[in-house]
């Protein structure tokens, strides 16, 4: 059976071009980039080259890029890094205020919840029914002691794209730092940090056809954060540990290709996205599109199907070779449905029935046609046995 992988927002396969670029750095150019001999220096040069490639894409200096072990790590570094500076400054007393919003990834929310335990204040801004952050509420939440605002670029579940430039203006008017989690959409969206007005930006490798266990944090020069990992002078003393050379090479290559292809690919996927949305709305009764109709990632389709529980839908599609994800509690480690959909005001039943189809570079129209055909049957089958569904 053919696999139709529609879970690219969870992770992407490694592209062949990316893999072949990185392969020599496992067994041939294997030196420790910190070593002073030739074997090490070659690896160091390769990392420097990658840093240069990425800095051009982000429009920043090379020393503003910190390579990390994941998007989650970069996020932790940005948030806790700012908090720890304050802790040190105030001799261990947590003083200061942070702002984020309710549909952030758990890496952001749980980092904030943890610094709240240390004694910092955090405000969690609401979103509207489409998942867009409420800018008036953001303005009102700002205090004299607000240190950092962290708001994601695009949402991982529903694909809603936040107005980063406007948020940046609000933050910078008050001299507040602005971090964005750009793990979703780095493949398709503008990454020029100067144009966007970003102070810190998280990107990870596993969603852009590079390696899992790789990430980076853009940190604007002049901003002081404390490292989370100590033990060497790596990455401008911001992240100790021998550099993961192949993963860094892979990330640079992946971003380079994405930069070249993203305009064309965004157009192709947006067409495919809207095709699927229209077809589902036309051919399946009682559905709800989750997320913003237009301000959404080109590769994201997210629907709730009345009367159906998401995990059952996911596993029945899985039997047909189609891989999707759901916001249902049943597929999570908690017993609550997606916090993203709840923040957007969905009732429980609809949150439990939400299903995400996230496209990628290998997704074709044929895949989508097949998916819709199977989806119609599975929805019919599950509605037939549902006590909360009446024709």
């Amino acid at each position, binding site marked *: 059976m053919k696999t139709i992988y529609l879970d690219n927002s969870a992770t992407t396969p490694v592209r062949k071009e990316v893999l072949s670029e990185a392969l020599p750095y496992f067994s041939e150019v294997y030196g420790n980039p910190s070593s002073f001999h030739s074997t090490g220096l070659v690896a160091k040069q390769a990392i420097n080259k990658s840093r240069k490639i990425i800095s051009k894409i982000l429009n920043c200096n090379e020393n503003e890029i910190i390579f990390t072990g994941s998007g989650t790590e970069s996020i932790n570094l940005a948030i806790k890094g700012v908090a720890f500076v304050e802790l040190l400054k105030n001799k261990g007393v947590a003083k200061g205020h942070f702002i984020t919003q309710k549909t952030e990834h758990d890496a952001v929310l749980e980092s904030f919840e943890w610094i709240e335990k240390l004694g910092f204040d955090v405000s969690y801004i609401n979103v509207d029914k489409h998942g867009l952050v409420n800018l008036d509420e953001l303005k009102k939440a700002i205090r004299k002691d607000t240190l950092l605002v962290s708001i994601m670029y695009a949402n991982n579940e529903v694909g809603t794209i936040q107005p980063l430039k406007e948020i940046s203006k609000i933050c910078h008017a008050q001299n507040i730092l602005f971090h964005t989690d750009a793990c979703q959409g780095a493949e398709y969206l503008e990454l020029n940090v100067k144009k966007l007005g970003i102070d810190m930006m998280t990107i990870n490798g596993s969603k852009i056809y590079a390696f899992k266990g790789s990430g980076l944090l853009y940190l604007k020069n002049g901003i002081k954060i404390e490292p989370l990992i100590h033990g060497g002078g790596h990455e401008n003393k911001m992240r100790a540990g021998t550099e993961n050379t192949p993963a860094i090479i892979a990330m640079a290559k992946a971003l380079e290709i994405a930069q070249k292809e993203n305009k064309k690919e965004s157009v192709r996927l947006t067409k495919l996205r809207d095709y699927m949305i229209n077809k589902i709305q036309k051919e399946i009764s009682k559905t709800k599109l989750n997320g913003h109709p237009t301000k959404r990632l080109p590769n994201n389709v997210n629907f709730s199907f009345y*009367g*159906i*529980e998401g995990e*059952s839908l996911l*596993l029945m599609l899985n039997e047909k070779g189609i891989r999707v994800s759901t916001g249902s509690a*049943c*597929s999570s480690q908690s017993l609550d449905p997606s916090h993203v959909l709840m923040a957007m005001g969905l009732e429980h*039943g609809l949150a439990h029935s939400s299903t995400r189809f996230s496209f990628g570079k290998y997704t074709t129209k044929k895949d989508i046609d097949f998916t819709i055909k199977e989806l119609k049957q599975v929805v019919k089958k599950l509605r037939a046995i549902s*006590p909360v569904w009446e024709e």
Partner: protein
Amino acid sequence: MQVEGESWFYSDIVKKHFLDPQNIVKDKKTIKDFDGYGQVGNMKCGDIMEMWIKIKEDKIIDCKWRTFGCASAIASTSMLSVMVTEKGGMKIDKALKITAQDITKRLKGLPSIKIHCSVMGDQALKYAVWDYKTKNKRDDIIMDQPKETDH
């Protein structure tokens, strides 16, 4: 290279019951002459279960159900319906003693987080028997009135 590994989250028997649930109601109009009805669960937790039973000579001879729920909710209720109706039907008193653990055992296990939230067929059955007991004034059936637990 072929990578070996489990490709399913649940056991084979769970998968079988999920993909081909037994005694399931696909059309409510087909339900006639039932002796007891039970409903359990709520939308907050994401599982709602309905059950209809037929009773003859104190044995459960038919057990039909339907659900809004995850794979383990479907599979566990399917299994329960088989357990109470196999071999000519289970005596009511014995059926009332079936626990989530008994069902889980027959399914060759469920992920622990799933047992509490999704195995609710045993609860639905108690509601259905209670319905039968009160409608037919069967004071001889000894049971506590079922109460909704937080799923």
